[in-house]
């Protein structure tokens, strides 16, 4: 937390206000200590809410303070550390008035732990393959929670929709980053990825925490998929065709994947394990391809570990995906 705040206050950037908003933590001890430690910065404003109402409402409190005062609003997570030039780089693309939001280039804080290294490999491909491809058309579908920037005039327009989002009557809590991005796209703006805007963030280092995170991410992915499709049908002129291509392929892959898994497991158990092996080899092969490209691009040796991620994919992410679909209506974070 301290590192995070320090990194925002020590940016190579002249005009920045930082609001830290405590979303009704049980104890005020940490808040008071932070307030004391950073009191010498005149651009740092700590706010404490006395009721825990969730991340979106906490952000909304800060939006209300900021959106008339600044041109760009940057959202980050409390476990993210920005690079010194993170801000100057993330705002560059806002020179183009058609761009409404930009996501930064986030990597994982690597600990001496295999899981964090594997997640870092996943982050690399999620940003430098998936988001980079979407960015070419201005259609990044998720401005990452750990580091994203939005035009404040758009935030003013969409903030009420953002905090009142509901899915099957339930109030939506997680998936805030994906929904805010969708609201920007729905306003007709482009959303881009900025490779030079670096940040690192803490990622789960135990498998149980990773599973809960993946369940939340999958739920928000499927929920937002339905939301985007609904708005695409209503106002196709607001969306680039690449969004439709991307979402169609991802939906088709999901259904095919379910069929492949069901058939592979069934045939693998009843006929021969070779059927199961076929599927494992295919997933492994795809991971090798991703890892090869990632390594060639970055020369980061850790990314060569990425093929091991395919086993995580089979034994944790697929069950997380299935669990997410079955419990799509449940809104808890699974961490508190």
């Amino acid at each position, binding site marked *: 937390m301290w590192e995070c705040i320090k990194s925002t206050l020590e940016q190579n950037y002249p*005009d920045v206000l930082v*609001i830290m908003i405590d979303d009704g933590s049980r104890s005020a001890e940490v808040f008071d200590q932070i307030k004391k430690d950073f009191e010498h910065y005149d651009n740092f404003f700590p706010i404490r809410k006395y009721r825990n109402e969730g991340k979106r409402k906490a952000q909304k409190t800060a939006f209300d303070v900021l959106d008339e005062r600044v041109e760009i609003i940057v959202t980050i997570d409390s476990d993210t550390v920005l690079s010194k030039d993170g801000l100057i780089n993330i705002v560059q693309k806002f020179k183009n008035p058609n761009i409404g939001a930009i996501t930064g280039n986030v990597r994982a804080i690597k600990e001496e732990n295999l899981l964090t290294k594997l997640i870092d490999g996943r982050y690399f491909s999620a940003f430098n393959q998936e988001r980079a491809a979407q960015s070419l058309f201005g259609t990044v579908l998720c401005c990452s929670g750990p580091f994203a920037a939005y035009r404040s005039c758009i935030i003013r327009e969409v903030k009420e929709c953002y905090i009142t989002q509901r899915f099957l009557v339930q109030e939506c809590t997680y998936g805030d980053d994906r929904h805010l991005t969708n609201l920007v796209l729905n306003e007709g703006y482009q959303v881009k990825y900025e490779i030079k805007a670096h940040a690192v963030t803490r990622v789960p280092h135990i498998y149980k925490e990773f599973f809960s995170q993946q369940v939340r991410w999958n739920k928000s992915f499927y929920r937002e998929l339905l939301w985007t499709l609904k708005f695409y049908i209503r106002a196709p002129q607001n969306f680039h065709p690449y969004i439709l291509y991307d979402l169609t392929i991802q939906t088709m*892959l999901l259904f095919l994947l379910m069929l492949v898994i069901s058939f592979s497991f069934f045939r693998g158990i009843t006929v021969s394990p070779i059927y199961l092996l076929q599927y494992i080899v295919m997933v492994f092969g795809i991971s090798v391809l991703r890892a090869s490209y990632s390594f060639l691009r970055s020369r980061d040796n850790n990314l060569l570990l990425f093929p091991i991620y395919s086993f995580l994919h089979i034994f944790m992410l697929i069950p997380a995906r299935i669990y997410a679909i079955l419990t799509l209506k449940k809104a808890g974070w699974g961490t508190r």
Partner: protein
Amino acid sequence: MILQTIILWYGILALSHLFIQINLGHIEFLKYFSMITDKSFTPSVGIIIPMYN
């Protein structure tokens, strides 16, 4: 037979999507070499850090 067909289709779709993503992503990556950071472009920025402990 059904399994083989589904696996084949899944493989083709997943690989072609990956190939498209990597290529498009790489085009975007190559664009960065020609971009220079304009340090005089500094719109006012507000950073929000929500916390809960």
